[in-house]
């Protein structure tokens, strides 16, 4: 099976899985004993108020109708309305997601870095006290509730030492990094002028095309000429259209929602340092808890690899031990680590809920917990669905990457 057909099969298999996930969430919120509206008001509201709420949220319709409306809404990116203030859940989730993403990326980096470093060290000194203590560390770290570790780090580094802030994502006195905002002015000559200076881009495309053709030894000059002319036209018109579109927007905002990246785009070192300072404790907490898995994985893989012949051969050729370990052996352990990163992503998101609550980090997990406290069941459903979709997407990407890197999977 080729890579392309593997990808097609994998994508097709994801569809029933996502449908199942969505149905599971729907069933949990609607069918498990406990009417969301009744629970929301804790049985303290009048019958009319509850009926009005049901009608407004469409909860008075029969279950199959609700189910198809829910699926249709998801297709349009609509996750329903909040029971609390009837605002669209999807808006709140989209604005909370970058914070979670930033935390997740940094925690994954911490987990993989700690895991590889300690795992390699442990495998180098098999059964020595160092190996035993690293293994013990991996097990203990697995057994710590994330929020307990978070609170301990908060207590030591934030409250006693004042090195890092205890809560939040950014200092309130500084404006949040918003990325680069470009104010564009419309060229005086209008579209014709845009078209004129866009032809420079067209020429660049033409030049690149010629170089590429020469590289490939295309000597049939009519064909080569036609292709290069086509490249010129495409480059020219595409650039002119894009430029005209953006110029007409008036302002252009380049931002990712990740404060570390946005402060770099903004070229503000102060904001960058502050966002790192706020990010450090939460990502250390989540990363350390996850690192146990990576330590054990790296250790066992390295133990197996270090016994193989090619490692002995490399050592015999007089290469340094570090070069052999990191350059030769670790490379073989990289594929399982990559797979584990994908597998651990679900755990990471679960852990993010607890970490965000501990550090008042304004992400998706915090949003979910807030909504639980408001008994806002439509928002809970929206957030859970969003989590499920992210995990399904990540699993898909990891599987495809894995198949790309390791051809054995495809067969």
């Amino acid at each position: 099976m080729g890579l392309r057909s593997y990808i097609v099969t994998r994508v097709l298999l994801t569809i029933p899985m996502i449908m199942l996930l969505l149905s599971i969430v729907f069933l949990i919120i609607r069918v498990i004993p406990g009417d969301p509206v009744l629970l929301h008001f804790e049985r303290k509201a009048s019958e009319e108020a509850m009926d009005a709420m049901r009608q407004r949220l469409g909860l008075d319709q029969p279950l199959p109708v609700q189910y198809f409306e829910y699926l249709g809404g998801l297709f349009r990116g609509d996750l329903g309305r909040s029971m609390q203030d009837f605002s669209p859940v999807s808006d709140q989730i989209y604005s909370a997601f970058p914070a979670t993403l930033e935390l997740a990326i940094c925690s994954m980096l911490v987990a993989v870095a700690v895991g590889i470093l300690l795992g390699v060290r442990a495998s180098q000194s098999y059964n020595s006290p160092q190996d035993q203590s690293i293994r013990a560390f991996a097990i203990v770290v697995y057994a710590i509730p994330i929020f307990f570790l978070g609170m301990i780090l908060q207590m030591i580094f934030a409250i006693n030492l004042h090195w890092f802030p205890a809560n939040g994502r950014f200092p309130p006195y500084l404006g949040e990094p918003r990325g680069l905002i470009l104010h564009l002015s419309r060229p005086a000559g209008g579209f014709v002028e845009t078209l004129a200076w866009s032809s420079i881009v067209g020429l660049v495309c033409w030049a690149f095309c010629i170089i590429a053709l020469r590289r490939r030894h295309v000597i049939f000059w009519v064909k080569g000429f036609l292709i290069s002319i086509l490249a010129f036209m495409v480059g020219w018109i595409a650039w002119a259209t894009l430029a005209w579109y953006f110029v007409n927007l008036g302002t252009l905002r380049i931002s990712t929602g990740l404060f570390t990246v946005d402060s770099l785009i903004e070229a503000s070192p102060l904001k960058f340092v502050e966002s790192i300072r706020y990010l450090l404790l939460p990502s250390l907490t989540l990363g350390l808890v996850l690192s146990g898995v990576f330590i054990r994985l790296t250790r066992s893989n390295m133990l197996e690899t270090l016994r193989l012949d090619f490692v002995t051969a490399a050592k015999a050729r007089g290469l340094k031990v570090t070069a052999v370990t990191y350059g030769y052996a670790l490379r073989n352990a990289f594929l399982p680590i990559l797979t584990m990163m994908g597998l651990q992503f679900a755990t990471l998101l679960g852990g993010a809920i607890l970490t965000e609550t501990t550090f008042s980090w304004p992400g998706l997990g915090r949003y979910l917990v807030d909504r639980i406290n408001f008994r806002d069941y439509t928002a809970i459903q929206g957030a859970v669905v969003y989590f499920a979709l992210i995990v399904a997407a990540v699993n898909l990407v990891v599987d495809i990457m894995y198949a790309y890197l390791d051809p054995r999977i495809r067969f």
Partner: protein
Amino acid sequence: MPTVKTRRAIFSGLISRLTSLTGRGSAGWMTIIGAAIVGVIILLTLLGPWISPYDPRAINVSPPPNPSPPSGNFPLGTNLLGQDMLSRILCGGSIMIQVALLSVLFCFVIGVPIGLLASYTGGALDKVVNLVMDSFYAFPGLVLAIAIAAMMGRGVINMALSIGVVYIPSYYRIVRSQVLTIKELPYAEAARATGARGRTILLRYVLPNILPSIAVVATMNFADAILTAAGLTFVGLGIGIEVPDWGWDLSKGRELLPSGAWWVITFPGVMIVLLALGFTLIGEGLSELLNPRLEK
């Protein structure tokens, strides 16, 4: 008295089993240490109501100001409500242990039969069950547990159910992988050839051989269930103030953190870590004893 004798026999048998583990390297020691930690904690929790110096539910047993740091009268300090932390530590394990026990039981009762049946039968049933289980498995466990617990309301059984649903796929997967191997082994084939029915083969030949692996999954699962129960309590889906619970104490301690009241979070937190660690050690040790790998 015959009962005492048998009890003593069981006890000495257990001891000799445990002491024989010491000769099995680090895996044996891990199992012993884990079992010791878990045993002591369960013993403390059982005896808690009798040996705790104060009523763990009674508020303002210590004169204000509260929370007060550890002192002679209150060796582990008091919390915001003026409750004695030592008494709450001694009695606070029961919720977690109950929830973990029930959820593991629930997983076992649901996950193992489904795994046995579906993977032994094979065909379309296996494919469908596999897909459903994979979807559950891919779901972030804590998120699923939160969603179910939020809908079911408070209570030990509800909490155990919501945690149990999350971990059923782990049982299913281990059962399935083992059944698929055992099904093809000569002795299972021989049983089929003698005309044994499917049920007999599953219960007499397959199940006894996969029980050790299930036991490993179950002990590891205890640790996960305890941590998930603590997590559920932390996000506000716990049992509540009525019953002393480490998870509840720990999550309430978060509000006191800025005041520097370290004792309010440290002691319950350490107890949860110890309990989860004990089960993890047993699981790790058992799994290494059963499948020795990397023997050099």
